[in-house]
């Protein structure tokens, strides 16, 4: 039963992937502006433009361009960037590493905040402390991550000068890596943590009121004990679904945060490629992002089934 569900989910995954690749390709082809004239600038001659368009394959019909692109990308060949002349696959892979490290660290931070604050807010819901936590998380939700980033930069980089304001260092220099990671990861994670803490709180509140919690307490467990033993686990499934969705929105948030911190991840790569109308590169990046989001969803679905046996049969 479980096996068939997994196969079904994977089939849905593949169909979605193909459909999104077509949509991405069509949408991007409809954008005004082309790579040839953007690259040649304000003084290009007409002949130079025609030659460049031909060289980039922009004079081919749309279906042919899609077919060439799709078959190449399946073989791991994303082509050569129309603008930078570098291998797109290498570029995207480097950017992906950076973005994944950033997003995963931010997710860990967000989860710690969400569970810490969410559980406290639920536990102390009728007291002033719970109220303060709710207000704090509301403030966190209202702040966009780029603003959080700017505030963190001004405090920790410009004023205190204890962390770098911009840039990225590869993990082979652990000190530099950590110091460059901390501010961007926090600016992504704080906001998402605040958002998710609301879900944790309400999931916990719902669970606290459930019959099995009363049963657990009547068996002699303390309130905290019942929460620990039974509450959190039951609240986990809805929270994980939210975390999956938030993971996807973090990937989008990373686009902005990478720009604020001048980090060369997928996000900033995407923005500069869009600006330059480097369509092969944009298409590859967007497809990688689409795959990531779909994979996260797939994992969340499969994991939910593992955590909660009730879901296994239902899907």
């Amino acid at each position, binding site marked *: 039963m479980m096996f068939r569900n997994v196969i079904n989910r994977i089939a849905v995954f593949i169909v979605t992937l193909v459909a999104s690749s077509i949509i991405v390709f069509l949408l991007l082809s409809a954008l005004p502006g082309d790579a040839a004239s953007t690259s040649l600038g304000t003084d290009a001659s007409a002949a130079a433009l025609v030659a460049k368009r031909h060289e980039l394959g922009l004079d081919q019909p749309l279906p042919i361009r899609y077919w060439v692109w799709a078959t190449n990308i399946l073989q791991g060949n994303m082509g050569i960037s129309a603008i930078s002349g570098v291998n797109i696959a290498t570029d995207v892979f480097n950017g992906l590493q950076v973005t994944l490290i950033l997003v995963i660290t931010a997710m860990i931070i967000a989860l710690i905040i969400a569970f810490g604050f969410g559980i406290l807010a639920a536990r102390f819901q009728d007291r002033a402390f719970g109220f303060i936590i709710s207000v704090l998380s509301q403030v966190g939700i209202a702040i966009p991550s780029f603003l959080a980033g700017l505030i963190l930069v001004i405090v920790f980089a410009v004023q205190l000068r204890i962390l770098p304001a*911009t840039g990225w260092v590869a993990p082979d220099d652990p000190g530099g890596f950590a110091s460059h990671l901390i501010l961007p990861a926090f600016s992504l994670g704080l906001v998402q943590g605040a958002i998710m803490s609301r879900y944790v709180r309400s999931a916990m509140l719902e669970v606290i009121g459930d019959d099995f919690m009363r049963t657990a307490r009547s068996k002699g467990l303390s309130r905290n004990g019942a929460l620990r033993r039974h509450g959190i686990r039951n609240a986990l499934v809805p929270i994980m679904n939210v975390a999956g969705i938030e993971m996807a929105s973090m990937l989008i948030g990373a686009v902005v945060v990478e720009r604020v911190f001048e980090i060369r991840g997928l996000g*900033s790569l995407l923005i500069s490629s869009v600006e*330059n109308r480097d369509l092969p590169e944009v298409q590859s990046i967007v497809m990688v992002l689409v795959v990531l989001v779909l994979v996260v969803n797939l994992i969340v679905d499969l994991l939910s089934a593992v955590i909660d046996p009730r879901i296994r049969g239902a899907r």
Partner: protein
Amino acid sequence: MKVHWMKKISMLASVGIATAMVLSGCAGGTGASSSESGTSANTSIRIGLTPSPANLNFEQTAGQAIPQALMYNVYESLVKLNENGKTIQPLLAKSWKISNDGLTYTFNLRSGVKFSNGDPFNASTVKFNLERLNQWKANTPANLSAIDHVDAVSNTEAKVVLKEPDRNTLFWLTSVLGAMVDPNEVNNMDTQAIGTGPFTVSDYKVGSQMDLKRNDSYWGTKPALRTAQLKYYSDTTSSSNALLSGDIDAIYNFQGYDQIDQFKNDNYTINTGNAQGDTMLVMNPSKGPFSNIKLRQAVMYAVDKDRILKTVINGYGTVLSAPVIPSDPWYKNLSSTYKHDTAKAKQLVQQSGVKDLTVNFTVPTRPYAQSIAQIVKTELDAIGFKVNLTEQEFPAVWIQNTMTNKNYDMTAMWHVEARNVTNYGNANYYWNYNNAKVNSDFAAAKKAGSDTDFNSSMLDAVTQIQQDAPADWLYNTNLITITKKGITGFSKNDVGIAMDLTGVKG
């Protein structure tokens, strides 16, 4: 099973907390050391820049970013433009002679010069490079189209023979068009830069960072810098935060004019010179309301340039009155022609007799253009125009719709190319301007026998263009370079060719 899951969660949490602790611990250490490195960095420098090169190939890709990083540092030309923008000095050519008919330029080359990969530089290299300009797609190779061929007389003597005299030739040879590229490396120019210059590119991460390293086999005076790291920022706030927090040591050509005040203290030096370029309000003389010269002149009187200079770039620039900037050799202040005068503007609008005064103003999505657009719209409203403002994403959409398709009545654009006034001699350029007298002035300048004649013909052309008012030339920005105290040697002015690092000391 229950215990199992609880364990996982608490493990995850403790890993997270541990990571956070390790991170904050490490961070303190590195932060402290990075702020110290500024004072001890006497042989290395980290410079913040704003437009990043999309690749390293200036033959195929337009824009100032590539030459800014590579010219005079990695690539060298036969001759070099002094930082005043007027004097031409020897570089790979020790000396040169121009024949009386202005058709032959004989360059006496330095001997023993090698490219950084060991390949020799000689007269055949000059021939190779100057004879393949017709294969360039970007950076206006037409500026050197007067060159007919090059004779490699000996290893150290190259005769550049022109089809017709062109007094601009020497100037364009100082620019990226005159860059001497290793003939064996022309196919790798997107990602590699092999030149004869004092630096080599040791690494380039597209859009974020270029590392330059001193070329120890350089033929000339070795630069003081051992390494220079060029870091590219997508906006001025990021770069000024980076300088304030010690991530970088200098910002070259800083354009965050509202953020300059925070550097006015003992820790930094602010250098102010002239930048290249002309921010202009282009009016399309070939269609729409601005085909009427009276309306174009009305705009000239209506727009308050002092106000624009103050609002848009905080006063860090020079108001212009014609397509000529202070560092052009033929510069003359022509501001008496159109003095700001709203009454006169209204009068011209009436005299024009045009009823439908609707203007399609297409503005690129750049902060300077958007500020200008708001002020101009208010001022044109006041003299009776109805202004339709449309924002166009820059570069892609603006380049296609406004520049390539010339589908606009008015646009605002910051042109940074050096001496691009000659585009008024090109009727196909998006400025859509054509005047026989101007063309003949440009032709006379090319044929001029002396610099004085050349400059006076150029000024004639400029004066005529100003009369015709195909644009309102707003301002020329200052070159602002902010460094940590103790860093010297950046050129005072940007002559539009390079950020010359050869004299920079940390």
